[in-house]
Every structure is written in structure tokens, then in C-alpha cells.
């Protein structure tokens, strides 16, 4: 029972953390280019409904993921038009996108509410998934879980080891200098925004096609906002995004296990449910005490529009 228990908690924690990792990494790249896109919640919603619709009609979860990605990119393109080309306020554009996306997804999804998808079997990695305790949690998961791990490494490599990543960070730190030495600031920011949208769309697809194979209005239930706060929580470091996402997922799952264990612990459920949020704030406060860490990693031009010929 003991090991089984740990294994189940671990498994559920990883599943709960996966969409957060994917969406937060997309947003991290966007923010590293100096753009603050608060539209994750809406983008995820539209990605979720698009993925669900395509997976339902074609019967292919993989095409569903692609559709979610495409829908996410479309949504971020709208944001790009408003915030990068027309130079509207990024915070306002992002918030508007969130509200619009949640509504649009409800509108598109109306006719899919009565549909249930078959749940997708996990991908078991030969041999490794037989390891006791860790095996089922780490090596018998949905494909997107493995994708999220690859994504962490890829984003970390891209940002800190590749030339293109260096340019992207330069654009985020000082767009004027980057522009002066011949980099297309707006073009690079567009690419970063599109990447963020694609990841948010995939995160939404994970929710509607794999996590709870159904579509219901409001099913993203605030996960887009949590992903946004994770980026700050992680002080813009990809590895810490993973820690934060699992911490968050772990708190949520553990409190459920405590409740469901029948253990006679009289802690209000409301308190247990708030633990993940409290944990986020506590870590945020601890990190922010050292102002250096924040200033070192936060892109200097975050949220500021860039006018090429100014």
C-alpha cells in the first residue's frame, strides 16, 4: 500500500503539472523577448476546443494536438497584430485576448458539449516502465508528458546555448541595441509570441484530449493564469518552471490523497485546496527578497512596445 500510494501520487502530480509546464515554457520564451502576453487562459481555451473538435472528427489525438497548436498560434497572431504591429498596450491586449478566447471557445464548443472522446492509452517505454514505484509515473505516461520534458531541455538549450537564443534575449533586454546591430526586433518578437501561442494551444489540447477527454465551457479553469504566475515564480528559468509546476500539481494531488485516505485529520478542505497557492506566494516572497535574482533574470524591456524608428 505504501509504495503504491507514493506511486499514485507521483503519477497524478506529473499529469497535473504537464499542461502547466508546456504553457509556462511558451510564455517564458515570449517574455524573454520582452513581450508580456497575458492571453494564456484564452489561448488555452481555444486550443482545447480546436484540439477536441479535430480529434473527435478525425479520431486522431495527434491531429488534435496539431489543431490545438494551430489555434493557439492564430490567437497569438491576433495578440501580435495588436501589441506588436499596432503597438497597443500589451497588458490590455493580453487580458482582452484571454476574455475573448474563453468566450470564443464556448461559442465554438457549443455543439461538442455532448461528445465524449475515448481516452488515449499511455505510451509505455519498454523495460523502463517496469521499474517499481518510478516506472509507471515516469515511463508509462501520455506522449505530451515526455514532450514537456524534452521541451524543458530544448528551451534551456535554445535560450542559453544557441545564437538565436542569445539574439532573442538581447531583444528582450535592450531592443534598441539589438535593432542597432541589425536584428529585426518586431520579427523576432512575433516568432516568440507565436511559439508561446503554440505551446498554450498544446497545453489546452492536453486538457481536452488527454487529461479529461471532453469539452466543457470553462474547463481550463484558471490553469492559464497559474502558468503565467509560474514564469515569475521560476524567475524566468526553464528548470525552475518544472519544479514549480510539479510543486503546484503535487500540493493539489496530495491534499486530495489526504482527504481520500480516510485519515482522521480535521483540516478544512478549503485550507488544503489553498496550499498550492499559498506555496506559490511563499516561494515568490522568498525569491523576491533577493532583488538581484529577479533583476538578473527578468527581461529588462518586458512589456514595453518597440517602435523601430524611434
Amino acid at each position, binding site marked *: 500500500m505504501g509504495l503504491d500510494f507514493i506511486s499514485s501520487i507521483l503519477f*497524478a502530480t506529473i499529469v*497535473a503539472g504537464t499542461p502547466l509546464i508546456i504553457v509556462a515554457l511558451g510564455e517564458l520564451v515570449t517574455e524573454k523577448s520582452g513581450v508580456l502576453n497575458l492571453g494564456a487562459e484564452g489561448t488555452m481555451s481555444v486550443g482545447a476546443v480546436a484540439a477536441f473538435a479535430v480529434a473527435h472528427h478525425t479520431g486522431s489525438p495527434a491531429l488534435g494536438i496539431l489543431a490545438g497548436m494551430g489555434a493557439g498560434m492564430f490567437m497569438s497572431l491576433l495578440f501580435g497584430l495588436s501589441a506588436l504591429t499596432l503597438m497597443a498596450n500589451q497588458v490590455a491586449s493580453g487580458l482582452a485576448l484571454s476574455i475573448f478566447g474563453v468566450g470564443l471557445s464556448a461559442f465554438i464548443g457549443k455543439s461538442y*458539449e455532448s461528445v*465524449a472522446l475515448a481516452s488515449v492509452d499511455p505510451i509505455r517505454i519498454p523495460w523502463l516502465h517496469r521499474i517499481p514505484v518510478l516506472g509507471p509515473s515516469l515511463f508509462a505516461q501520455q506522449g505530451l508528458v515526455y514532450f514537456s520534458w524534452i521541451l524543458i531541455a530544448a528551451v534551456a538549450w535554445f535560450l542559453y546555448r544557441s545564437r538565436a537564443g542569445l539574439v532573442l534575449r538581447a531583444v528582450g533586454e535592450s531592443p534598441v541595441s539589438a535593432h542597432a546591430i541589425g536584428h529585426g526586433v518586431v520579427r523576432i518578437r512575433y516568432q516568440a509570441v507565436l511559439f508561446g501561442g503554440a505551446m498554450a494551444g498544446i497545453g489546452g489540447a492536453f486538457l481536452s484530449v488527454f487529461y*479529461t477527454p471532453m469539452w466543457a465551457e470553462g474547463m481550463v479553469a484558471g490553469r492559464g493564469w497559474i502558468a503565467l504566475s509560474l514564469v515569475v515564480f521560476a524567475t524566468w528559468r526553464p528548470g525552475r518552471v518544472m519544479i514549480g509546476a510539479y510543486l503546484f500539481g503535487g500540493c493539489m494531488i496530495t491534499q*486530495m490523497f489526504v*482527504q481520500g485516505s480516510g485519515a482522521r*485529520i480535521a483540516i*478544512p478542505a478549503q485550507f488544503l485546496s489553498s496550499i498550492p497557492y499559498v506555496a506559490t506566494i511563499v516561494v515568490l516572497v522568498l525569491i523576491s527578497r533577493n532583488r538581484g535574482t529577479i533583476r538578473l533574470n527578468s527581461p529588462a524591456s518586458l512589456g514595453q512596445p518597440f517602435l523601430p524608428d524611434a
Partner: protein
Amino acid sequence: MNHRKLALATLGGAALLASTPLMGAPPAAAPIKIGYVYVSPVGDAGWTFQHDQGRKQMEAALQGAVTTKFIENVPEGADAERIIRQLAQDGNQIIFTTSFGYMNQTAKVAAAFPNAIFLHATGYKQGKNLGTYNARFYEGRYLNGVIAGKMTKTNIAGYVGAFPIPEVMQGINAFTRGMKSVNPKAEVRVIWVNSWFDPGKEREAAMTLISQGADMITHHTDSTAAVQAAEEKHKEKGTWAFSYHSDMAKYGPTAQLTGTTHIWGDFYTKVVKEVLDKKWKGTHVWGGFKDGMIKLAPLSPAIPADLKKTILRMEADITAGRLHPFAGPVVDQDGKERVPKGQNMTDADMGAMNYYVQGVASTLPKS
């Protein structure tokens, strides 16, 4: 503050004038307008969906005599008052407000429009033109519990709850008493997700309960996620599910054994007819099997024939008043006797239920 009071006073004055029988009764041929206020989108299953089914059934039954409209996704609070007032101003003569959180707003608007009739679901404030209604969902829960008690292999049932309010407590306790009545070893474990609607969390809660040994899953939340989770684990772990609000067989074709389904249509038809015939009196209606306000979802073929027969007999007993899910002795989790032997729990006591009965393994969060 002040001008709201003034507005109210003016409206009250207007209401006084209007309530004197100046206005001739409209010609009988003109259909009366009926408005519904829903707290969430209609969707495909759940609390609001069942109300909308009821609205449609009533409109079909009273064809020509009524026209209905609904406004969905109305947040509880100040916004609701604006919407309810708008419906009243538009000449809706009967207005159904279908969420507990509309209570004060409905009462306020009802006082301002004495010629319209307001019916508020799950509340407790009544007036001359303000009635309340609710259903005895716990009767269905009890029978669900009996099936769970007979069919469980692990003797553990898992219950996904939204918030520990009396209505949810009644469901958990009735389910537990039903289960215990046929299986003394049974226990019920509860996970609160603190949300009426969060499919992700509901699913995690159900999965958690299943991984901790529950092979019977039910829920008092608004999505179909718990039933779907049971369906997914059915093959591997033999998990069964009981739906709530709506029949969710579509989402749990193998795993759903039955469920407690809300049926509002008969009530809506009856109450609107009473209003049309000028026989309606403001009151509280709390109906169960007897009044057709709840039904068991279709019994799955997986339920053995003799158990099926027992369930139908028990349903008849509840309908006839021979069986009460909270017939004494009712003992709570701490061993305190809440209802002595030979008595049934009163409606008032049920309406204030804030404890687990014996057989619930979880501890109630103290508020």
C-alpha cells in the same frame, strides 16, 4: 445607497398602485411570458441542463398558453438582480431563478413586482408572490448507496463533493446509510474539490479515490468527469459509477450503474398551470420520488435481477412513505444520536445537516 432606497420606495409605491385590480385580465388567448435565470451555461449535463429540460417539457405540455425564454450564465449577486428585474419589466409573469445565490435578489425584485410570480430554487425566503422549490435528491442517493453496498468488492465508495453545505451533506449521508444498510463493512470516503465545476480537479479526485481502493464512485459536482474517470478505470479495477444531476450513461456506458436524476418538467408544468388557473399559493415545495421530481437513471444491466427488484421495491416504499433514508436511529460520526429510534428526521433538521453519519470515513472540515 440612498438613491437605491428611493428607487425601491418608488417602485414599492408603483407596486401598490398596480396591485389594485385596475388592469383588466389579458385576453385568455395571449400566451403568458415565462422567464428563467440560469447560473451556468445550459451545456449537455448537470444542474442547469436539467432545469432547461424541465423548461422545454413544460413549454411543450402547455403549448400555446406560454412562451418561455432563459438567460444563462448569470452570476450570483448584483448582476442577477438587474437580469431578474429586466425579465419582470419585460412582462414575464412567472420568473424562475434556479440558483441558491439568487435568493436575496429574487426577494427584492419580487417585492417590487407584486403582479409577477417568482419561484426560486433551493432557497428558503417565501412571500406572497415568491415561492421556493427543491427536490429530495437524498432519496435517490439512498438507493444508489444500497446498490453500491451490494455490489462493492472493496467495501469502499468514493464521493467527490463540491462544498460541505446541507444539500451535499444530505446526499453523502443518505448514500452512506443506504450502503451501510446492506453492507455493515462499507465505508464512504469524501474528497472536496471546492468548486462546483472544475473537470480537471473532479477527475483527479475520482482517480485518487479509485487508487485508494474505492470501486464505487459518485459525485456532487457539475461535470461528467467523475463518471468518465470510473469508466476509464472500469476494465482495470472494476470501478462503477453513479451519476448525479443528469443521466451520464453517454460518458460511462459500462461503468454507470444508475444515478440520481433531477426531473423538473412535471413540477414546472404543474406550477405554471396553477398560476394560469389562478390557484397558485406561495409556498415551499420539496418533492421527491412521490412528486416525480427525481428519478433513478436507467438501471444498468450489470445490476443483478434480484437487486434490481429490491431497488424498485424500495423506491415504491420511499414513494409511499414507508421508508425514510433518515429514519431513526441516526447516529453521527462521533457516536452522537441525532434522531432517536422510531422517528424520522424532520425537514428542518435535514435542511441544517452539517455532520457526517456513521460510515463516512473522512473527517468533515471544520469551518
